[in-house]
């Protein structure tokens, strides 16, 4: 099962390595990991997408809570939530592909943010699966470069992760 774990952690040097080190030492998966300070600069918010059985997820949550710098841990995927990922994708855009690529970007509500004679850079935001769909919808031979941020997530409605 895929899970999205949100962590509030003290914004101190080495905080990221404590978390990533825990995952590698205990053999847990990390599919994506994002981290940045919150509105309170003493706290960082981390979002980790991981997979594992219920037992493994229980351990991941407990082990994260055990880290002295970790303030709070929530499994966002346990309830209603929103997830978003940003992708920048550079594609070859020449001849008939140029118009086709523009159309595909429109269909996926992407924006072309860089243009040359032969390339576009498309910016796309959405769930990870939407970004995957875009990649599979266009001709693989036209993809020059892809960069994705990994998932950020937030609970819906009254679900709030705050100190």
């Amino acid at each position, binding site marked *: 099962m895929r899970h999205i774990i949100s962590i509030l*952690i003290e914004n101190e040097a*080495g905080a990221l*390595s404590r978390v990533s080190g825990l995952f590698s030492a205990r053999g847990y998966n990390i599919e994506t990991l994002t981290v940045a300070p919150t509105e309170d600069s003493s706290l960082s918010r981390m979002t980790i997408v991981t997979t594992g059985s219920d037992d493994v997820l229980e*351990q991941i949550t*407990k*082990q994260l809570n055990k880290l*002295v*710098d970790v*303030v709070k841990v929530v499994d966002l995927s346990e309830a209603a939530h929103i997830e978003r990922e940003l992708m920048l994708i550079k594609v070859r855009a020449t001849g008939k592909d140029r118009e086709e690529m523009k159309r595909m970007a429109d269909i996926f509500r992407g924006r072309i943010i860089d243009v040359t004679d032969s390339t576009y850079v498309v910016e796309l935001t959405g769930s990870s699966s939407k970004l995957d769909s875009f990649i599979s919808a266009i001709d693989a031979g036209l993809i020059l470069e892809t960069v994705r941020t990994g998932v950020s997530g937030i609970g819906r409605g009254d679900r709030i992760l705050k*100190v």
Partner: protein
Amino acid sequence: MKMTGAEIVIRCLQEEKVEYMFGYPGGAVLHIYDELFKQEQIKHILVRHEQAAVHAADGYARSTQKVGVALVTSGPGATNAVTGIATAYMDSIPIVVISGQVPVPAIGQDAFQEVDMVGITRPCVKHNFLVKDVRDLADTIKKAFHIAKTGRPGPVVVDIPKDVTAHACEFEYPQTVQMRSYNPVVKGHLGQIKKAVQLLAEAKRPIIYVGGGAVLSDAAEPLRKLAHHLGYPVTNTLMGLGAFSGTDRQNLGMLGMHGTVEANMAMHYADVVLSIGARFDDRVIGNPANFAEEPRKIIHIDIDPSSISKRVRVDVPIVGNVPDVLEEMLKLIDGKKPDPAQTADWWRQIGEWRGKNSLGYKQDKELIMPQYVVQKLYEITKGEAIVCSDVGQHQMWAAQYYPFAEPRRWLNSGGLGTMGVGLPYAMGAQFAHPDATVVCVTGEGSIQMCIQELSTAKQFRLPIKIISLNNRYLGMVRQWQEMFYGSRYSGSYMDSLPDFVKLAEAYGHVGIRVERPEDVEPALKKAFIDHKDDLVFMDFQTNREANVFPMVAAGKGLTDMILAEDL
């Protein structure tokens, strides 16, 4: 008043009432050593290798309730300390290790004796700090002690760059610690405790399974009350020995890989397991799949939620400090004793298992049996010694044949299994208990991993008694090779051993070699009575082929025991 970082370090340690600091000087900690020199409250114990400094601080902590403290320099001093830190981490021992670091501007420059101590120790500490500003020093040290001793205890490293120890700032030692991210639970959940009491009252085949957490949290007294009140059988893990008296009739002995038949069978076939500060690890229950085959209800009391339902599913988890939870249970039980008839069949069954006498061994007329040495040691020390063990066969024999009536008398590396801990543990314990009889049970393999500490023991006149069960093999390795590798003794034979008697004498101690069974008792008497105030190194030339039984092979189920008589 302004103070330098070095002064602040020493003042903080004084505020924490540190009596002994085990350490080894070097460039990065020279300012601290200079301040240490100017005061008398904290006694510095110069070891001969940094690993031993941490082990000694660890042994000091294990034998008391206090936090052990070690001081090492940067680079190699720090890396030498890592084995000691990992050892303390695996057994949840509260220690604070202060390491020197190169000056802040030199960090990351591959400076002389630079190593990323915070990075290296991250997976084997409860927490660690790099202090880059002298103004954070006092706060950090206060936090380090707080973190080390609260919740599930563990080692904390404070890495201090040399320039930070030279800079000055105002000093005030904080009286309290506020950390929004760290608030360990103490009280257990009352609803869960009620469920546990109910389950225990209805149990027909109960067992109380006690681990190191009961020792660390000083739960012996409420545990004794609860166990006696219920009248249920008790088994201790290797780390739990002494938490419940080894001589009590209700005690089935140690369980696990080298546990007794009665303890392992009772653990496997129990209908209700009350786990107290134990973690169902691989050396205790063997294969978890095999353990899960038998239906049973498990109550698990532990201060660390991540220890619960880690290897086996638990029915009633209780997160809390063991003595607090046990007291709460006693209150709820309110004097109502379970009917002994309810468990009469169970005790009868246990009696049958006991009848197998699984710790029996054949005495030999010519060769000294290692088990016999431990039994005689028990008699001569009246079971009251603090026994510090190394790692290997001798460790298991000491655990099996020296029943501990009290907690904190059995010091060994259970989790990490670190050879070489015995002598430094004995040093730490002897400093903490100057009048106690402190014994190091070891083998010719383990003792050589920290043998340089014989020099420290001489410098500080520590009357430790070293019992070396010398079989001229790395015994536990040889045993596995005999049983599982067709007796191919690859790398487990030691040639060219030193003459340990002469070696002990060279360090200024007393050495005794014992070669025949009839000489065991007189030699022990000579050591413990005639040489009460000396360190005595006893080199027992034991039966080379003796093995530790019972044995559950790695990956097998608890009931799959190899007994001495099977061979």
